[in-house]
Each structure stands twice: as C-alpha cells, then as structure tokens.
C-alpha cells in the first residue's frame, strides 16, 4: 500500500509536469489555431537561458534565492521576447493558411531551436536543474514524504489553468483573443486589433512554456532533447482536453501522469511510458469525434 501511495504521488507530480506543458499548447491552439509542435523546444530554449543565468553568470556572493529569482525573471522575459519574435517573423505570415501548414512550420521552428540549443549548450549532456523550492524540503502526507518541488508544480498547474481560463473568459482582452480565434476577419471588422492579440497570444504561450520548462528541470534528465520530446505527453494531455478546455487539459495531464507511472511498478523500462502516451492519444482520438477538433482549428 505504501508503495502504491508513493507511485501515486510520483504520478501526480509527473501529471503536473504534463499539465503545465499542455496548457501552453492549448492556449496557443485556441487563440491562434496553430498546433505548436515546437512548444517543448521553445520552453527548452528559454529554460536553458535561465539555466545559463543561474549557473553561468550569477555571482557567487549572491544568495541562492536572488540568483534563482534573477534566472527565472530573465528566462521569462527572454521567453516573451522569443514568442514576440516568432510571431513577427513567422506566424504573422501564415495566419490564413491551412492548419496543417501552420503545424509543419512549427516543425521548422522545432528543428532550428533544438539544434541551436545543442550548439550552444551541447547535446546529451547532464545539466544541473534549477530548484524553485529548496531541494531537501519535504512534507509528510499519509506517511509518504512529498518533495516541495512536486507541490509547487501541482499548485502552479492548477493555478495557471484556472488563471488562464478566467483571463480568457472574463477580461476584455481575453474575449478579443477568443474572437480572433473564431474568425480573424470578423474580429478585425469589430475593431479587435488582430495583430496585437496574436502577438500577445504567442508571448503568453511562450511564457507558459518557459515556466513549465523551469519547473520541470528537477524531475527529468535535463538535456536539450528531453524537454523537446515532452511534447508528445503534452499533446496527449491537450487532446484529452479536446485542445480547447484548460481544466480538462490539467485533468488529462494528471490522468496521463498516473497512467504512465503505475506500469513502472512492474515494467522497468524508460521507453514504456511513451507507448502509454501513444495509446492514450489513439484512444482519445478514436473515442472523440476527430471533426470536433477541426471546428476549433479555424
């Protein structure tokens, strides 16, 4: 029973990771109609910028919290700027194209960012993670110690889901974002600044990706590929939410985390969780009407 509880905790932590990664995908898909395969790569690049600030450029006399804060702030600012730059340089020019073309263009972004990162920070090399909460801090819950960083992830995932959902629903800017996603032409006729809304969507999406990346570093083998490849688990979680619903996406992330963790009780394999993710994707796509996504994809 104790082992089962421990695996549940690990699974929920993993689920929080997937939820965080999936939220940005859903946000960008909902507001711009781009299914962003480069989401993991974008988060990875910003995370490595934060890593560079934390381990490369911070002064040894600074207290840890100051270095961490600085690293996170610089990483997030970089992420927002990168989102803005990508919108200006790439996605502004393909707004009226088919969803598939937009998705393929994100593969170009993925390849470029991935290789740029491996050029700068070297591929397949272990990097020390960034801890937001103290590494050793734990809480006891039902006799199982839970790392503080796990709790940070779960809280952040839930907070972001409801925060972003409220932002889209109740603020006027959020409403204009949804209007643009429904129809850019009629939104612009109603006076919605389409270019500005699209730019903010990309900045926000990139920001969420960076936040997810920084939070995730303690729990994965932190190198240039692993964060990029997290995209498939994130997409599985996003599909559970129908690529639209933020709370369902978070729920899907936790569900996927548990589904990927429980088999490791019996099967010791690094690759098996990928199979679980694929099966979840196929199951979701078969059960749900695939044409339901096309409507949201406008």
């Amino acid at each position, binding site marked *: 029973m104790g082992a089962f509880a421990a695996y549940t905790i690990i699974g929920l932590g993993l689920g929080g990771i997937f939820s965080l990664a999936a939220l940005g995908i859903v946000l960008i898909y909902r507001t711009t109609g781009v*299914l962003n*395969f480069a989401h993991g790569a974008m988060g990875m690049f910003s995370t490595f910028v934060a890593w560079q600030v934390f381990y490369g450029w911070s002064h040894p006399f600074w207290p840890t919290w100051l270095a961490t804060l600085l690293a996170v702030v610089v990483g997030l600012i970089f992420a927002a700027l990168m989102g803005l730059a990508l919108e200006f340089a*790439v996605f502004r*020019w*393909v707004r009226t*194209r*088919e*969803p*598939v*073309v937009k*998705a*393929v*263009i994100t*593969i*170009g*972004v*993925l*390849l*470029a*960012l*991935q*290789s*740029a990162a*491996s*050029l700068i920070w070297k*591929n397949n090399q272990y990097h020390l993670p960034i801890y937001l909460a103290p590494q050793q801090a734990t809480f006891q819950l039902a006799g199982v110690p839970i790392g503080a960083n796990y709790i940070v992830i779960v809280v952040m995932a839930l907070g972001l889901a409801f925060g972003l959902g409220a932002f889209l629903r109740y603020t006027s800017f959020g409403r204009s974002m949804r209007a643009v996603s429904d129809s850019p032409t009629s939104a612009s006729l109603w006076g919605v600044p389409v270019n500005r809304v699209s730019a903010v969507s990309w900045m926000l999406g990139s920001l969420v990706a960076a936040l997810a990346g920084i939070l995730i570093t303690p729990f994965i083998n932190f190198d240039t590929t692993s964060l990029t*490849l997290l*995209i*498939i688990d994130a*997409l*599985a979680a996003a*599909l559970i939410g129908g690529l639209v619903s933020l709370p369902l996406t978070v729920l899907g992330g936790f569900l996927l985390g548990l589904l990927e963790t429980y088999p490791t009780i019996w099967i010791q*394999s*690094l*690759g*098996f969780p*990928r*199979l679980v*993710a*694929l099966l979840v*994707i*196929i199951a979701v*796509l*078969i059960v749900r009407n*695939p044409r339901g*996504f*096309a409507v949201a*994809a406008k």
Partner: protein
Amino acid sequence: MTSRLMFRVLAALIAFTVLGRIPVGFDVGFKFDAALAVIWAFGLLSLVLLTGYVGQISLCQATFAGVGAYAAGLMVAGFHADYMVAVLVGVAAAFALGVIVGIPALRLRGITLAIVTLGIALVFDRYVFQDHAFEWFTGGSAGWRVDHATMFGLQMDSSKHLMAAYVVLLALFCVVALLMVNLHDSGAGRRLRAIRDSEVAAATMGVNLTRYKLLAFGMSAAIAGLGGSFYPLVAGSVSPQPFWLFTSLQFAAIAVLMGVRYVPAAALGGVFMAVVPDVLTRFGHGTFMGHAYEISYDWFQIAVGVLLIVQLIALPDGVWGDLRARARHAWSAAGVLGGRKVKVA
C-alpha cells in the same frame, strides 16, 4: 509505349548512368554519402507518395526505414540470408507496419494524424529500438553487425563494395521513381489524388477509401523500408540513432522544402540530406580573420528549420516546384511552346 513514357524511361536511364558514375573518383566517405543519399531519397520519396499524392501527413517515415533496416540486419546477421532476401523481408516488415499505422489514419487527418505519427515515431525511437524486450529484433544495444553479406551469391562487404551497393540502390531508386511518376497519371493515382483533394468527394465517386488509404500507407512505408533495408549493408551495422525521431522530422521538413508533390525533388532532397552535412563538417573548419571556427552538424539542422519556414512562407510549392514553374514560364515566354495547344512541329 507512348512518347511521354518513353521520354521518362530515357530520363531515368540517363539519370542512372550519370549518377552511377559520379562517386567513382571520390574517397570512401563520399561513396558512403552517395549510398546514404539514395537511402534518404527513398524516405523522401515515400512522403511524395503519402503526402504529395494522397495528402496524408506522416512524421514517422524514418521509423519505417528503421524497421526495414532492423529486419534486414536480423535476416543477414541472425539467419545469414542472402541480402536480397533480407531486403524483401525488410520491405515486407515496413509494409506491414505501414498498414497498421494506416488504420488510425482511416479516421484521422491533418494535425491529428501528425500527432499520432509523431507518437509512433517516438515510441519506436525510445522503446522498440532501445528496449530489452525487443532485443531479438534489434540485436541489443550493439545492434546488428553486417560484416559478410552476399547478394545474388556475390560477396558484398560494406567498405569494399560500397560502389556496388550504391549502384544497386540507385537502380532500384530509378525504377521506383519511374513507377511513382507513372502512378501519378494512372487510374489508381487519380483515385489517390482524389482522396487528397476531398475524401468525401472521392468516396462519392466510388473510391474505396479504406483500401486506398491503407494501400497508400503500406506502399509508402515499403518505399521507406526499401531504402532503410540497405542501411546495414552500407553502414556495416544498425543502430537506433539514424532512425530516431529527428530524422523523421527532417524527412518531413526536407520533403516539404524540396517540393512534396514532385518525384525528382525526393532525389534532390536525398542528396541535400546526406552530402551537405558531411561537406559542412568535413571542410567547415579553419580560421577566418584570425578566429578559429568549426561548423558542426547542428548548423545543418538549423538551416533545414529556417529554410523550411522561409519556403512555407515564400514558395509554398517547394524548391523543385518553384524552379519547375519558373522554367516552364521562361520556356513558354521564349516562345518554344508557343501558346497552350500549339505543338512544336
């Protein structure tokens, strides 16, 4: 034989004769690149069929090539079969996997199909090609070593007989490319293209969607697997690295970049994918204005990504498609073709 078909056969023969001689004077490294270029060209050609003709997106073509490579390696290293038998088994294995992947594709299209195929590529990359449970197929972490292979009973060692492997590969590529070009205008090709343009319309016209979609996936995987099954012969061993997820993504990117609707674009893309990174890493180091520099493989992948973005924005039909349109325009502007229906003498 129509004059058009005759022209195509002639073009394929000339291409085979010329391309077959090109690597002769070069060192072993470039001969390896030449053979690798044909293997990658098969992978790109498989996307011409699947994406260019049938309109189905796939991000797991390198997985099909990898399954072909591992099956061929298993046959040669495990069962000491003749290499041609190994190639047949590799193609059959890839075809079977392609049909299986095609089953979810019956209900999916566009981005959802992209997600599923990406997942399949990742599962094979991280699980099937690397896990202990599949060691009988992948030969363990060391992979299959193919030192002594025979083809048609003749000795074929990877380092000594690289040119022979290249010529066989090239001949097969020319045949498959010719078949692909002919498929485009045949009845089956028209049915496949009808699926690309509108599945509903194609089904209304009496096209059996299930059969043709599964067939397209199987044939496409078989083409990729045909190239991949020669990989153990050319490289001397099989490992997961050449067939990992990023190769699949590069296949998709380069196929689109070169022009996913055109068969010659696949050949162009294969050369681009095999030769350019090798030339870059081999000659791309030295000093420039007092600074030592070294160009690594990463620069190639950055270039692929950036070129793909620029191409999708500026030249939607790909490099080959754009060149073709320009050439035709210049041709007709020069008055050679005259008007639309005017025949030259």
